[in-house]
């Protein structure tokens, strides 16, 4: 037995092993590059939704903060109802947003929907005699009698619609249209204003 015999014997090794020995090898570098790429993709897939959620959360939070600040600003700057009647200056009180919407809807149910309907109007009811109010209109200077109210719907774009509420009618002071209302409708509106 000599080395040539071993060399000959190696020549008789199974074909499948001989073939496999020459199959293309993937280098370590290529393998690590592939593994690194896969890991990066995996991290991206895992982390991206999380990152998006964080950003979305921050954005939502920022939006909520902005909305809240805006709401507070609107609440304190514009939203008020003066509940006293024409005969005195009375006191100012605030109306919740839900009530504002309800007031708007109640008026719309009587007059038909206004073009500016979006629920964002600000409602102000002011005493008819309060001529110092910036919302007071000369056109609506037909002074309300005792027990009557002037309701001003202020749209967020600044436009104003004014209504005169009596026990039986709701008068649109802008168009001069008059709408008959039932006692229940009047009481409902009053209950919203005085809320």
């Amino acid at each position: 037995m000599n080395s040539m015999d071993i060399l000959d014997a190696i020549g008789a090794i199974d074909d499948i092993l001989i073939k496999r020995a020459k199959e293309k090898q993937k280098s370590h570098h290529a393998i690590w590059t592939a593994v690194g790429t896969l890991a990066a993709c995996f991290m991206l897939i895992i982390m991206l939704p999380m990152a998006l959620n964080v950003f979305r959360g921050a954005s939502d939070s920022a939006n909520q903060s902005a909305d809240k600040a805006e709401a507070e600003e609107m609440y304190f700057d514009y939203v008020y109802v003066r509940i006293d009647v024409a005969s005195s200056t009375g006191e100012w009180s605030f109306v919740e947003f839900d009530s504002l919407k309800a007031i708007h809807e109640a008026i719309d149910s009587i007059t038909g929907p206004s073009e500016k309907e979006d629920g964002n109007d600000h409602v102000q009811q002011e005493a008819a005699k309060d001529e110092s109010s910036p919302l007071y209109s000369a056109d609506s200077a037909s002074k309300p009698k005792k027990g009557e109210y002037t309701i001003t719907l202020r749209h967020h774009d600044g436009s104003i619609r004014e209504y005169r509420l009596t026990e039986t009618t709701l008068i649109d002071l802008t168009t001069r249209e008059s709408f008959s209302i039932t006692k229940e409708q009047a009481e409902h509106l009053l209950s919203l204003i005085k809320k």
Partner: protein
Amino acid sequence: MDDKQIVALYFDRNEQAIAETETKYGKYCYAIAIGVLSMHEDAEESVNDTWINAWNSMPPHRPSILSTFLGKITRRIAIDKWRRRTAEKRGGGEIALVLDELEDCIAHDSDVEKTLEKKRLEKVINRFVHKLPEKDQKVFLCRYFYMDSIESICRQFDFSESKVKSILYRTREKLRRVLIEEELA
């Protein structure tokens, strides 16, 4: 053309089979031959002999893997050529012939024994290689079947030279122990 079609050409005794084989496996067989012989002319001759050998073998033999079938033929032819070449160099001409002639004087029983021992050695080595870890197996076969250089193996597997040498050394040591156990060494 796929291997089945090429083998079919051999079985049809269509000479196109050799042309197709040369086109597809010429480089592969030449790489094996040049690994053994290191001489272009001898390697070319071995490859051409391979096609003739394949033509004479098919039919009846139908190889399962044509590439390794051809590779084994090339390797065997190249090794035989190398043996003759070294014998000529060593013997200075006549002594190689004399030794060949004297070989005939050895009893046929001895040939039978030798053949049986070679067959047993083939089985032992085949089993040994099968049991090797895949990486060691490939490195071992690249070195001792294909006769690739160490540098070439390093490139193929992206291993350092010392690593390849270490794998080969450990594998040879294992083989030596196996051959001793089998009383073949």
